[in-house]
């Protein structure tokens, strides 16, 4: 390619490159930052019997005076209210507890699955990955409804347990925390298995041979080599499951009972039942702040992984 050619082609390509780099930012601004700022603003407002159901409303027609009175109308009252009522605190706690426990269960179940997948013959692995993501081909909601059916009083699970003589009385599953755990673990399993599989699959087999060569039996090499090296996958999988699980609404709403009030349901109640948009928004903002911490840890880990590669 001649120099003249190069200099002509270069600026155009870099413009496209810039666009490609900036597109995700534009996306984040439009679909994350702007909505978040709107929610943040509502969380600082007061409820009102109006349309929309809060004041003040940002209105440029009022001029400088209007803007000033708008800012004067904002307050942190809703956050103070969240602190005064233990309902919210308990709801957050419950959400974190359910999400954390589910994540641990997902790890315990997902790790052996991912590990077994990497041990399968090469040709089988593609099929196994397909099987892991196969449930996504059915609507999430339908799958949760299916679980409602499975877990109901005279559902397949209880009939199986009775047939196997494992229980005398059919246990109650629906509207319990157990059902919520079942639902979350079932729904989120692919999000745990896939990052774990991706990490374990990259693991250099010669590292395990080196460990064996240096006198380390196979089971011990798993703890000394495989586990530490799969840490990025464990962290990625755990965060991919933990973060959405905290805000989970559908599963606790359909499978859980009134006692499993997770934060998603609290927001729903405030928003739709109580028509209290500002409080609902405040609950949502606090949730985002709570989740930023694990996201930052995740980012940090990913960057470290990239640097190492």
């Amino acid at each position, binding site marked *: 390619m001649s120099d003249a050619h190069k200099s002509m082609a270069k600026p155009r390509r870099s413009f496209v490159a810039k666009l490609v780099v900036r597109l995700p930012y534009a996306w984040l601004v439009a679909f994350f930052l702007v909505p978040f700022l709107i929610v943040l603003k509502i969380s600082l407002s007061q409820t009102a019997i109006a349309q929309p159901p809060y004041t003040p409303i940002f209105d440029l027609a009022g001029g400088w005076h209007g803007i000033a009175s708008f800012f004067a109308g904002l307050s942190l009252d809703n956050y103070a209210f969240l602190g005064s009522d233990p309902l919210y605190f308990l709801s957050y706690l419950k959400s974190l507890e359910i999400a954390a426990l589910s994540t641990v269960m997902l790890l315990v179940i997902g790790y052996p699955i991912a590990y077994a997948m990497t041990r399968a013959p090469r040709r089988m692995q593609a099929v196994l990955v397909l099987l892991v993501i196969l449930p996504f081909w059915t609507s999430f909601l339908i799958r949760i409804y299916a679980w409602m059916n499975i877990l109901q009083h005279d559902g397949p699970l209880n009939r199986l347990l009775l047939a196997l003589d494992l229980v005398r009385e059919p246990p109650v599953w629906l509207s319990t925390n157990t059902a919520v755990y079942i639902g979350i673990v079932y729904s989120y399993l692919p999000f745990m298995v896939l990052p774990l599989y991706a990490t374990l699959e990259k693991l250099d087999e010669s590292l395990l041979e080196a460990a064996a060569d*240096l*006198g380390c039996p196979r089971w011990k090499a798993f703890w000394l080599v495989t586990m530490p090296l799969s840490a990025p996958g464990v962290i990625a999988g755990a965060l991919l499951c933990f973060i959405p699980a905290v805000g989970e609404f559908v599963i606790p709403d359909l499978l859980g009972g009134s006692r499993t009030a997770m934060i998603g349901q609290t927001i729903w109640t405030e928003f739709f039942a109580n028509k209290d948009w500002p409080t609902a928004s405040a609950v949502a903002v606090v949730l985002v702040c709570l989740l930023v911490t694990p996201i930052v840890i995740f980012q940090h880990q990913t960057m470290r992984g990239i640097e190492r590669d």
Partner: protein
Amino acid sequence: MQTVGSKQGVARRDFAPWTDHTLAPLLRIEGLTKRFGAYPAVDNLSLAIYPGEFFALLGPSGCGKTTLLRLIAGFERASAGRILLDGVDLLPVPPHRRPVNMMFQSYALFPHLTVAGNVAFGLKQEGLPKAQIAKRVGEMLALVHLENFGSRKPHELSGGQRQRVALARSLVKRPRILLLDEPMAALDKKLRGETQFELMELQRRLGLTFIIVTHDQSEAMTVADRIAVMDRGHLMQVAPPAEIYEQPNSRWVADFIGSVNLFEGRVGLDGSSVEGTALGRLRVGAKIAAEPGAPVWVAVRPEQLRMGPNPAEPDAQWALENDVAATLADVAYLGDLSIYRLRTAAGVPLQASRANVGPFAPRTIASNDKVWLNFPRAAAIVLTQ
């Protein structure tokens, strides 16, 4: 067998335990076979390696040399045969209990451990006290000149440094045999040359037995006391480097090691000449170990072919030299030596090489020049297979 050190007497060191039948080998491989499916990667192979030996497994890719090494390390399960270390069969012993260590081609350093952690890994498995581990790791790092790198992670090191960490890690347990799988393949050429000499020095100093797998023949010839040339799971020849080069036992070995001019013919009636070759009748140095009329091959190394304007001994009846007229087709100037591609009047291609020692050396012959090639009888290697 008094061939050690070769005709020219370039014995590297006075070390040839394989010639002493009173000595017991350290490692004895008997009828070892490893099949992948129906394909035998190692085929009924027998071999003895002696204490203190630097032994090279050399061959083209896919010849089974790495499989043989991995069988010794225990990463592959043998289909048949025995591997005896000090008379004890290693095959039932799992890899983590075998008193041999391996240096991997990829180095296989643990990326999550520091340099010191990598070197200490093997000692920790033995359950040694911490102070002793630290002492031995320190000694080992000093041996490979990495004293100040103990707290680094492998990804913070250069390729050459990583290679030395891998070496230190595989040596720290004082293995009965150190197995090296293409240990220098990832190094650049200059560093490889230096590392080869360092490795030899290290091996002599520690008095250990090394088995190295390599596809690089100059590397094998540099470091090894003996070379086993392998092809398709078989040992083609096991001998010191000079013997492999100067007295190959087959056309395959002669052709694989270095360059060679090969001529097919039949043993002459006098028993010390080969007739009917593409160059006519060739005189050889010694009595041929085959009946007159038997098919044989004459191999001549390019550096043994001398070029001149006249035949060496034009009229001699009992000539000591073989003379061939040829035309120069091409010269490859490599600096230290030049490779000459020639062709006889009958069209037989020949290759000669000459060290560029004098200032005029490369310019005395030009393309299309007619030259006489001659080589002494002793330079003609007769191969019966």
